């Protein structure tokens, strides 16, 4: 019986069988014999999550544009499907061709979230592939990673053959070329360039990959530790390995390939709509924000291209909703004329336009009205901290006035749901800052009483998350609050937010703690990760699957002290496990920002003048005229 028959037999017995069947509009089928390189794009979570991720659509498109590459998709199967796959001996398979993962030449995982790491281990195991890179020979696919978490790669350094840093469009093709050559060498089609080096083909491949800009090959380095357990450096095991790995940049967003025929899933996914990326990067410089640091500089798509892409994408997919994507939508230099034009187009096509990631201080009434014209959904703001003092510390440069003016505008326009995002446990936080959160919520309900013409329902949702210090940010040296302290603060807030028309949501503290361990871990924490998986952990980001006691057991059994990683403030001169990864922003700059934060000093938005973050060591930052009209 062939694999697709075997899979089919399982599908009548699982929930959401369509997640495993493929066949969606614009999914790509090729003749396996016609392609030279089989690339398996792996998303370490469920299909419905992965299919909402724009990065996957971009990579799928960029790779499949090459006639010699076939990129197929693989997702983490649901627990019901996994159980059946294991009992019936069905290995992890590609959605498109129902091929075993092991038949791929490269398996490329995207690392979006620390709590999906156990799913990576599980997917490799389901594929019948040894989890540790050192246990894999030439018959195994090359296992690669990219995405945000690659900027702190050490926890997974023993698992992956290599990491890709930064924009993927170019580097993916370059590594694919290297692996194609390796394959040719293995099949005897091609003599290795230099047979006298005495290397196995895989070793030769890894060295070649290490020579590609933006590629980190962890097996070429050995971490060094001091007696107190802190890292002291990475020792090179091969002289040719680069001292530091600088991330890749794609600078021209108008010419880079973009999926105008993205795969349209049959089933309801998390974000079931057409997505157009406005720009990459952010100039704001919030000190907690990893994306804001690692995605610099800002690179915009021109309005003409965005409009063209929007129309074509909607026409090709048939979606009735469109969303603009970026780290901070309203910072797009020509946002108002663009939104006006897009609104007009969307109305003509009967399409709803959503604008996520709006900032309080920069969106105008005009845009609010535009959004209101189509549908009246809730508004979401992220003040992040409850007082001006703390917002200065984290460099979130909005004022109370911004918050209240924006809320008033929104209420006057008829919004009856306002959601506010905050973080607790930020460096320098005191209980007064928590009081500030409650005060903001109280003020907004007061504004509503004052100005609202409607007598009906009104609700302010205060959503609070736990601060996780991230690598490659000015807060990378900070200690995280203990779970006990987080819980105390949650109770404190819960008590103060007992107000009419205010509801309070908060995140689990145990998952935030784990996230902190893996966000700034070194190679040793990988052992705990694998042990936790052996004990049955997967889908740790899903409340119904998360089992904290197993994690504690895993840490205990592997001798990994999670507090060392989560709760310890790092010394400024300590070598950090991600120090050989260069995200473009320099360590000196992050340190300078840390000091400014300690003094409560804001740093300006770098559109108003360069702040010297270090990007210019590698790229010129494009300049966009703010608020300019474009017609």
């Amino acid at each position, binding site marked *: 019986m062939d694999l697709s028959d075997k899979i089919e*037999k399982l*599908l009548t017995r699982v929930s959401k069988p*369509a997640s495993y069947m493929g066949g969606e509009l614009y999914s790509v089928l090729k003749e396996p014999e016609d392609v030279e390189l089989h690339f398996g794009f792996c998303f370490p979570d469920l299909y419905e999550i992965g299919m909402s991720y724009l990065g996957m659509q971009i990579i799928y498109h960029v790779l499949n544009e090459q006639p010699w590459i076939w990129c197929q998709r693989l997702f983490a199967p649901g627990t019901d499907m996994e159980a059946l796959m294991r009992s019936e001996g069905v290995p992890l398979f590609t959605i498109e061709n129902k091929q075993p993962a092991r038949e791929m030449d490269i398996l490329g995982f995207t690392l979006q979230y620390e709590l999906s790491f156990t799913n990576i281990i599980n997917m490799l195991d389901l594929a019948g592939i040894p989890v540790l890179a050192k246990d894999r020979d030439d018959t195994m696919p090359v296992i690669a990673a990219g995405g945000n978490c690659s900027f702190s790669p050490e926890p997974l350094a023993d698992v992956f053959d290599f990491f890709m840093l930064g924009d993927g469009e170019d580097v993916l093709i370059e590594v694919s070329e290297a692996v194609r050559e390796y394959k040719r060498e293995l099949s005897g089609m091609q003599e290795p360039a230099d047979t006298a080096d005495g290397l196995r083909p895989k070793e030769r491949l890894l060295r070649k990959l290490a020579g590609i800009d933006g590629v980190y090959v962890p097996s070429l380095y050995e971490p060094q530790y001091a007696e107190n357990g802190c890292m002291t450096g990475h020792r090179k095991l091969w002289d040719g390995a680069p001292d530091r790995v600088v991330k890749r940049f794609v600078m021209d967003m108008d010419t880079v390939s973009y999926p105008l025929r993205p795969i*349209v899933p*049959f089933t309801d996914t998390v974000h079931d709509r057409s997505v157009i990326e406005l720009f990459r990067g952010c100039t704001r410089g919030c000190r907690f924000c990893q994306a804001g640091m690692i995605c610099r500089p800002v690179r915009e798509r021109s309005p003409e291209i965005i409009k063209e892409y929007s129309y074509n994408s909607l026409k090709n997919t048939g979606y*009735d909703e469109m969303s603009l994507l970026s780290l901070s939508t309203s910072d797009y230099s020509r946002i108002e004329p663009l939104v006006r034009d897009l609104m007009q187009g969307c109305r003509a096509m009967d399409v709803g336009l959503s604008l996520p990631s709006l900032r309080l201080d920069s969106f105008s009434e005009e845009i609010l009205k535009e959004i209101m014209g189509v549908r009246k959904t809730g508004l979401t703001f992220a003040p992040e901290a409850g007082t001006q003092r703390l917002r200065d510390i984290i460099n979130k440069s909005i004022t109370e006035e911004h918050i209240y003016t924006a809320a008033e505008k929104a209420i006057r326009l008829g919004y009856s749901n306002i959601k506010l995002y905050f973080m607790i446990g930020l460096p320098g936080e005191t209980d007064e800052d928590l009081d500030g959160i409650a005060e903001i919520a109280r003020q907004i309900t007061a504004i509503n009483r004052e100005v609202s013409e409607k007598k009906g329902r009104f609700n302010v949702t205060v959503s609070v998350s736990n601060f996780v210090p991230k690598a490659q940010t000015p807060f990378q040296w900070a200690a995280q609050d203990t779970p006990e302290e987080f819980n105390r603060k949650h109770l404190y807030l819960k008590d103060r937010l007992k107000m009419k028309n205010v509801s309070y949501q908060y995140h689990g503290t145990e998952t935030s703690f784990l996230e902190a361990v893996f966000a700034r871990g070194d190679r040793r924490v990988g052992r705990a990760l694998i042990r936790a998986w052996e004990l049955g952990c997967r889908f740790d980001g899903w409340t119904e699957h998360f089992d904290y006691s197993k994690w504690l057991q895993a840490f205990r059994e592997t001798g990994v002290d999670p507090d060392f990683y989560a709760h310890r403030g790092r010394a400024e001169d300590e070598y950090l496990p991600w120090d050989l990864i260069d995200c473009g922003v320099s360590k000196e700059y992050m340190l300078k920002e840390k000091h400014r934060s300690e003094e409560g000093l804001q740093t300006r938005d770098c559109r108003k003048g360069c702040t010297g973050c270090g990007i210019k060591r590698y790229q010129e930052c494009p300049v966009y005229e703010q608020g300019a009209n474009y017609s």
Partner: protein
Amino acid sequence: MGRFLIKFTKEGEIRYISHLDLLRVFQRAFRRTDVRLRYSQGYNPHPKISFAMPLSLGFESRGEYVEIETESGHGPEQIIRELAESMPRGLQVLACSPLAETSKTSPGAAVEFASYTAEYRGDDAAMRDSLVAGILPFLGEKEIISVKYSKKKKKDIETDIRPSIRSLSSASDTRLLLTMMLKAGNVGNLNPEQLVKALCRFCGREYLEYEWRYRRLDMFFRDGKGRIRPLTDFKG
């Protein structure tokens, strides 16, 4: 402007998408064409599109029907052509015929019978002989009691399914392929899986759902003269 009845297939991978998902697939397929659907009035307008009869998840079909109302002036041939380019793999438009604008009966309400095949894909070699030999005595039973769990009533319900079986036969080749015509629609509707389960039990064979593959062949209505005719002939 018009009302149309479209006949289509649901085969291959796409048989695992639900009724609700299929509705979205059609809505999007139309949005990719120039054919504009008519929308319902009211607070939450939705396009006028309705399926004649739901198909169980995992069943294939050569005879599905969907009724649409259009805003644009496309004729049946144009609709077929436009949709052919816009449909995902596995959904193939077979026919499109106009319905009377004013008719009160929907095609879905008119359906009285549906034909199916059930193919055995397991590896029990004795299954074929056993079931084929069982068909005649099975049909000879006065009543065939089938037990089905009712989600509504939250208990097992016993029904006599014999009156809902119009025909049941097996193909004359070496496979085990059952062909059947069953009551469908609002009164006495019988799912082929329920019948095959009953037949297996009658023959003392174990029924494992993943060993069977079902396919709907067509749907039928009764015309003014009482004749049973395929739904493509339905004019409203």
